[in-house]
């Protein structure tokens, strides 16, 4: 498939009707997300990956123009990792454990916290985070008229590639913390960790999509994404470190516990398979709910000036 690297157009790239030439795509009906009729799952998936590759190749070309940002960004990553570990150290000056977790276990959790925060900054904030703006300006029209699913386009159009350093350094910190605990994870624990981490990404994505769908009702609130940041602060510590009522909220109402505590618990050998499967279930439920909310929100959308 041909690689599409184009001018880093803003959203006004309405001239670009189709990205992955050569993909077996039927001519889409205008003003509707494409639904390749008769195409099965493999074809749709391949098409989605092709579009994704086109999106991110364009982004990479754009970001490489600002290479000095890379060093600054790397410095920020290391600085904030250090600050996070020091924060934990302040608590551990006064106590042996936080909610039953030792220092290095909490550090392993902070690595996960940082990695998922990196995904948020690299993919979610620059994409879904702009929905409010798209709705207010009516530029969402341009996306709705493109031959890809609007949710897909709105979610993955941009990639702030430098922030992926947070993911790499965060996971590295978790691995380092593991070497400090005498509990090397077996293969099954690693598999379970990857499963819960994927579930965590899915839950974070669903939280953002759900939160941003409210933009269709509250058009004048431009910083809805900040609400996620406020919630995510609670992910810095294992949920067992909180008083019971807060723990209940974080497990059952806003699923923050499933984002950082559960993957870190799996990695340090605290979670069983039941927890991992529960995480996968929560992730699927969150994805379905957020998709429903998004569709309901889209039905409300009355376009520019509406």
């Amino acid at each position: 498939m041909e690689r599409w690297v184009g001018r880093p157009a803003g959203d006004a790239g309405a001239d670009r009707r189709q990205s992955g030439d050569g993909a077996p795509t039927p001519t889409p009906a205008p003003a509707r997300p494409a639904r390749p009729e008769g195409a099965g799952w493999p074809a749709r998936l391949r098409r989605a990956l092709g579009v994704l590759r086109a999106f991110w190749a364009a982004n990479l070309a754009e970001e490489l123009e600002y290479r000095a940002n890379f060093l600054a960004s790397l410095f920020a990553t290391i600085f904030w990792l250090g600050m996070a570990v020091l924060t934990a150290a302040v608590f551990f000056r006064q106590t042996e454990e936080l909610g039953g977790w030792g220092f290095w276990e909490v550090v392993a959790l902070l690595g996960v916290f940082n990695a998922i925060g990196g995904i948020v900054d690299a993919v979610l904030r620059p994409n879904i985070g702009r929905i409010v703006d798209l709705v207010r300006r009516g530029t969402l029209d341009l996306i709705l008229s493109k031959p890809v699913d609007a949710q897909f386009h709105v979610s993955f159009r941009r990639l702030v590639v430098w922030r992926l350093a947070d993911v790499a350094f965060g996971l590295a910190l978790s691995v380092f913390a593991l070497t400090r605990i005498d509990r090397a994870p077996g293969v099954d624990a690693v598999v379970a960790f990857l499963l819960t981490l994927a579930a965590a990404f899915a839950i974070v994505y669903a939280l953002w999509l759900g939160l941003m769908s409210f933009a269709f009702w509250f058009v004048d609130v431009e910083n809805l994404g900040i609400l996620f940041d406020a919630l995510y602060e609670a992910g810095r510590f294992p949920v067992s470190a909180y008083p019971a009522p807060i723990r209940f909220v974080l497990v059952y109402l806003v699923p923050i516990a499933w984002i950082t505590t559960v993957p870190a618990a799996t990695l340090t050998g605290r979670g069983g398979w039941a927890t991992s499967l529960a995480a996968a279930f929560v992730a699927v439920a969150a994805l379905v709910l957020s998709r429903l909310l998004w569709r309901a929100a889209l039905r409300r959308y009355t376009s520019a000036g509406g």
Partner: protein
Amino acid sequence: MTASLRAWARRYGALIRAGWLVDVQYRAAIVIWLILGVAQPAITLAVWWSVAGGGEVGGFGQADFARYFFAVMLIDQATLAWDIWYIDRWIREGELNFRLARPMNPLHEAIADNLAYKGKSVVLIALVWFLIAVFWPAVRLPFDPGRLALAAIATTLAAAIRFLTSYVNGLLAFWTTRATAIAELHWGVSLFLAGRIAPLSLLPPAVASVAGVLWFPYMLAFPVEILTGTLTDADAILSGFGWQLVWLAAWTCAYLFVWTRGRRRYGAVGG
């Protein structure tokens, strides 16, 4: 003298009114920023609450932590300064131009905006604190007018210092495009040295004593400890006010220096 005083009062009246009206327009956004502002102290309090359990940690019981971090939320809003983000944009995008054309230093607009903003957020937090205190005895403060007055003075000085650090930091945009990155570093250090993660007495003594000669604790921890009654020793309070004045003077000098030098460098981008 009185005439010019009246002129200034009129100017500030107009500026504060303008700032107030802009904020009212963005009231929902402001509430969201407020939620982010209280999230960090609230979460930190929750963890310390569990750590303290039924006992004490470094002299702090559960109720002490609760009062401390409620005071942190209030004083943080009272001293909060967003100016770095505005000034950085003014300079980079040329929005400073028409402000320079006015017969008044843009500093006054920033001060007035701060007064208008804080009027709202402080009243809101104080109100919520009062309502919570009705149901939750742990966060009640004994009523003591003398201490409240001292806390008010310390908070005003703290707000002035924090405002100047933010404003000067913003003016660095005359020289660098990374003024906001510097602000992030400053914030990261202040998490510890201003007493946001823990009361300063729970930090390693060496760190606490370094903090004591810098401006960080005088922007937050010092007024907080007066308000909660942790700091009652007259000498300690006097020396705290002394340090506040020292740092206020130092940051004022820094402002004058950066403002005069920076304006000469300013190339008025945009339009």
